[in-house]
């Protein structure tokens, strides 16, 4: 499905609002939406929601031969998938323009800034190294996908623990989590992407929504770490604006917000990881807490114990079961009334009872005939309606209503 084009009214409305330094969701121009992070029960799995934009990240690892150019380093792959769930114009399994762009921005922010110690991921130089893969799925699109994806990727990487390995001369043993405690990744600094949007009138906003993204003329994404260091920069523009115009006004705000955001991510990761180390049952910040308990459309159940008939008697009635279930099967397939008939037949079977085939067909006939009766009635009503139309055109509707009532009564 193609993307719906934005109407002029909407465009003008957003532009006018920005002129008056107002945003549709009531934020200040340089204010970001709230960030929520929820972790799954696996290492390196999280859902991040930035306002209504939602992304899921999962880090996975396997052992591969390192690149010939960097024989003593592990590898990091970042893969952003624009799930068709996020918006109807995203297509599944195809690398579209925006997905390549987001992928590249994240690679520059996380990979090229060397925030992850890849050397520690090497097991045997030139032979074996860990290959990390970060999969990010966007599941709801409300603008600013880059920021949401970068927060998700960073949180997942910080949360991820890889299995421990021990290597003797020839072979490598990967220890399961039960044998040896898993190890976290070494992260030198924590870069996040912060996006800004410039409008026609020169106003700049932070963390644009989907609607604003479609109206804006230039988009600036900065990768900044908590030490206020710039890791990547991306400027995408439609009209004549230069980075020099935008950066001075927002760089300070971006650096402050980045520090705030990173401390938020660190804190939520720390809480979850500590709870796992202590093997505590944590009752916040998990997947199930994504579900808002107070919502009318949400629902919880405790465990549902089911007392099934003849539970656990499977062994006792081994011989009987086949017969029983054949009966059961028949009862299931035929509706209630005829099922009763069948049971009677079963009793009569072999005693020279009524022919079952005949019986079946007769019941079928009944059903069919009843169907036919209904059909006849319908055609009758149609005839009547037609007549009525010819006779009096005014009371068409009333007449048909009367007829349907009659139908129901019969």
């Amino acid at each position, binding site marked *: 499905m193609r993307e719906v084009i934005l109407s002029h009214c909407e465009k003008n409305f957003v532009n006018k609002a920005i002129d008056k330094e107002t945003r549709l969701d009531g934020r200040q121009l340089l204010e970001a939406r709230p960030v929520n992070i929820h972790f799954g029960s696996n290492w390196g799995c999280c859902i991040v929601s930035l306002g209504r934009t939602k992304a899921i990240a999962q880090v996975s690892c396997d052992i591969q031969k390192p690149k010939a150019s960097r024989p003593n380093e592990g590898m990091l792959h970042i893969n952003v998938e624009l799930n068709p769930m996020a918006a*109807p114009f995203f297509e599944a399994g195809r690398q579209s323009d925006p997905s390549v762009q987001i992928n590249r921005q994240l690679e520059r922010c996380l990979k090229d800034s060397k925030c992850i110690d890849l050397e520690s991921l090497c097991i045997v130089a030139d032979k074996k190294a860990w290959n990390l893969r970060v999969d990010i799925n966007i599941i709801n699109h409300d603008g600013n996908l880059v920021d949401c994806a970068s927060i998700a990727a960073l949180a997942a990487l910080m949360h991820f623990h890889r299995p421990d390995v021990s290597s003797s001369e020839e072979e490598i043993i990967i220890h399961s989590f039960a044998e040896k405690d898993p190890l976290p990744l070494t992260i030198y600094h924590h870069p996040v992407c912060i996006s800004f949007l410039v409008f026609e009138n020169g106003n700049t906003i932070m963390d644009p929504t989907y609607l604003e993204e479609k109206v804006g003329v230039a988009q600036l994404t900065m990768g900044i770490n908590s030490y206020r260091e710039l890791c990547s920069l991306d400027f995408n523009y439609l009209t004549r604006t230069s980075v020099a115009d935008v950066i001075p006004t927002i760089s300070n705000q971006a650096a402050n917000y980045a520090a705030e955001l990173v401390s938020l991510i660190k804190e939520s990761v720390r809480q979850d990881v500590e709870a796992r180390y202590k093997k505590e049952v944590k009752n916040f910040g998990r997947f199930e807490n994504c*579900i808002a308990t107070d919502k009318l459309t949400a629902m919880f159940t405790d465990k549902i114990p089911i007392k099934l008939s003849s539970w656990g*008697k499977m062994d006792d009635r081994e011989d009987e079961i086949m017969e029983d279930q054949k009966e059961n099967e028949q009862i299931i397939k035929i509706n209630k009334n005829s099922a009763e008939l069948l049971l009677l037949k079963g009793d009569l079977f072999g005693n020279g009872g009524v022919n079952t085939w005949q019986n079946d067909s007769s019941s079928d006939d009944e059903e069919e005939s009843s169907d036919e009766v209904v059909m006849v009635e319908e055609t009758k009503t149609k005839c009547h309606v037609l007549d009525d139309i010819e006779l009096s055109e005014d009371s068409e509707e009333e007449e048909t209503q009367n007829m349907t009532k009659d139908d129901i009564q019969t």
Partner: protein
Amino acid sequence: MEGTEIVEDEGILRPMKCELNHLTMPDGSAMFMQGDTAVVAGIYGPVEARVQKMMYDKASIEVVYTPIKGPPCVDDRMREQIIKETCEAALIATLHPGTAICINVQELQDSGGLLACTVNAACLALINSGLSMKFMIGAVNCMIEKDSQKLILDPDTTQIQEAKATFTFIFDSSKKDLVSCQTTGRFTEKEFLYSFDKCKEASQCVFQFFRSIVTKYATRI
């Protein structure tokens, strides 16, 4: 555990948690959890169909299943196919000729019974989207334990490792008939029919859950 007729953790469905309208972009969406297994489903429909897939007499139903990590593999395609065929049976596609109904399912976490969870999430999202259906669909997963030959309903990951065979049955809500089923492992016909019976009984709880969530919000609107 032994000695009692009804073993406690056998006849139990894991706790179900659900939120309808979880996402804002899709027409209908649901996040559904069964124990730790979590799935998000989102539905767009009826929307404009691509020319290649357009059918003049009914809506074409597209299903996209996205695994949590890596590109979709053969198993994921199969799951996609099962959801597609099940939803085709449930939806009244002839009401929207020439359009497409897109069902997207995202896996969040797999702790056993993923297919059942996926189908239930898809059904809840369909309910939320307001598309007309002939019946609801509810799936129940069960397994037969290797050593004890016992049937365990809705097993989790640790239990599934002891499984000789696993079954996922999908039922409809009106006639309580089987819509589709998926099995793994080796089993006898007797075991199959036995687990079919039990899952059928358990599916009533799933439908009851669906009904209660709808009544919960429908009575207050």
